[in-house]
């Protein structure tokens, strides 16, 4: 199996240089977009079937149209580069390989939605990317793609980098907006959605790095071209981060709908002498499935129909030397640390889930603890304010569903029998 590289199609020897990028066909999409009617740009993106690549999978054309339809003296585009989902580093690779494609995507979104100002919210953990992006923006400005009246058109658009300070929840769009405003990164109540009231109360479009990198491809090649990749309901390719216990970890691009077992084979399997035990899909907020379930297509709809998650495209392989309860403890410690604490279900729920998981770890759990885990998880999923608390119990719930023996084996100890 070979990769299908349409996003990670590196054309520059020096990824930073705008001139070299232009010589190789870069910024053609921006040149096209400045000549187009914003409505037509939105239509092409809508027709392409592009869905957000950050994890939620929202239709991108629709999201742009919300901002387009809201009247305001000022609108904003935010590139969400707060890639914090453990097991995901695709956005870092995009910035290292084809940074200008993200800038192009932001400019086109600006033209389509009527925004004149863009922010890249970059996690502080990527200092090397900050250096790249600073140079990339300068280079794009020098070539006339950013600033006032870009390419002599009526459109103004410029981009600023905003660096975070270490908070997973800032990947949630309203928490991210709070953070740009200099505050604690706590999620807002929705509605109003950012498309109506976002940064400083103005209509704001927040898109993931990978989503933005797709946009120039669609404008250049058309929506039907884009549909040749992926599935009927979810077109395009996806950057999958293969990590954990795998021989060839890395970020690889494949059409959406690629089989998980093929990704596993592509990654070279687990280290020698071990067996695959489980896989976690879409990051630590995603679902855990057992090794015998990997004959599955990696597209959001197929996975959802099986109670699995697509998420950010993270694929974490777990071999048979690992203790699943130990991993679940690690995952719940992560969520306890990263919960912003604003809403009770998430603030308290993650702590209680962790406490119960620790009972399984030290063999003091009882059979009814499995039911408590399921009950509490379902409450958190229904009542948490944002995606963090809604998805943090997923690992536990899916592990109980798909690998129940992980839990029952731990209550066969003397505590249970006694």
């Amino acid at each position, binding site marked *: 199996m070979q990769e299908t590289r349409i996003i990670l199609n590196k054309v520059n020897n020096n990824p930073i240089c705008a001139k070299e990028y232009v010589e190789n066909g870069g910024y053609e999409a921006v040149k096209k977009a400045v000549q187009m009617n914003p409505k037509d740009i939105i239509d092409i993106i809508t027709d392409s079937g592009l869905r957000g690549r950050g994890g939620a999978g929202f239709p991108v054309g629709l999201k742009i149209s919300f901002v387009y339809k809201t009247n305001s003296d000022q609108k904003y585009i935010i590139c969400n580069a707060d*890639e*914090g*989902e*453990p*097991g*995901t*580093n695709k*956005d*870092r690779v995009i910035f290292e390989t084809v940074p200008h494609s993200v800038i192009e995507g932001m400019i086109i979104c600006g033209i389509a939605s009527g925004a004149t100002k863009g922010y890249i919210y970059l*996690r*502080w*953990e*990527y*200092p*090397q990317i900050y250096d790249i992006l600073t140079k990339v923006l300068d280079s794009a400005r020098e070539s006339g793609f950013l600033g006032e009246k870009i390419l002599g058109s009526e459109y103004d658009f410029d981009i600023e980098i905003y*660096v*975070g*300070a*270490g*908070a*997973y929840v800032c990947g949630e769009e309203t928490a991210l907006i709070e*953070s*740009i*405003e*200099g*505050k*604690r*990164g*706590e999620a807002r109540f929705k509605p109003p959605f950012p498309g109506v009231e976002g940064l400083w109360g103005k209509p704001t479009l927040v898109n993931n790095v990978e989503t933005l990198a797709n946009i120039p491809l669609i404008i250049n090649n058309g929506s039907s071209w884009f549909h040749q990749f992926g599935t009927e309901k979810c077109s395009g390719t996806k950057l999958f*981060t*293969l*990590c*954990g*216990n795998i021989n060839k*970890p*890395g*970020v690889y691009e494949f059409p959406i709908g690629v089989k998980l077992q093929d990704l596993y084979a592509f990654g070279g399997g687990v280290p020698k002498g071990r067996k695959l035990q489980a896989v*976690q899909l879409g990051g*630590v907020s995603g679902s855990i499935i057992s090794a015998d379930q990997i004959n599955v297509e990696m597209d959001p709809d197929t996975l959802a129909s099986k109670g699995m998650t697509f998420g950010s495209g*993270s694929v*974490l392989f*777990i*071999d048979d030397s*690992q203790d699943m309860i130990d*991993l679940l403890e*690690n*995952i719940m*410690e*992560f969520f306890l*640390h*990263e919960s*912003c604490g604003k809403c009770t279900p998430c603030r308290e729920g993650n702590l209680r889930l962790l406490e119960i998981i620790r009972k399984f770890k030290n063999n003091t759990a009882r059979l009814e603890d499995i039911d408590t885990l399921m009950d509490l998880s379902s409450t958190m999923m229904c009542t948490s304010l944002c995606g963090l608390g809604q998805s943090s119990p997923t690992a536990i719930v899916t592990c109980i569903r798909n690998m129940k023996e992980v839990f029952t084996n731990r209550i066969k100890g003397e505590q249970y029998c006694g």
Partner: protein
Amino acid sequence: MLLEVEKIASAYKGRNDMLIKVLREVQPLTNNTLTPEVAKTIANAMEIPLTQVYDTATFYALFSTEPRGKHIIRLCRSASCHLNKAKELLQQIEKKLNIKVGQTTTDGLFTLETCECLGLCDVSPSMIIDDDVYGNVTINKFKKIIGKYR
């Protein structure tokens, strides 16, 4: 030192949105610690409430009100690194530096912390020292790396 902090912060008078940037920039000057004096200096120079400085600073993993060392070693503890023996590596590093996680070496040079995902899952286990990132870390590699900071 407080004069330098004041100089940085006063450039953003009334700009509440620049608080995180200011906190980031003053960190290396203040031994990575937000002391009450530093917090007050920032609040006065930016003309924002002191409570806001603490409100924001205590939320983010990057900042601390506890005393820390000149260089901060942050070892990733998230899933992919965890599966690649980050815990064992942490124990080896603790032994090498002769401190526990959260502590600072007696010479004040290094503070050892764990952090959540650094986005280096394809080269785990990983760590970041100040602003320098390192992947595929082993204890031998670590010993060589910290030599650069001494």
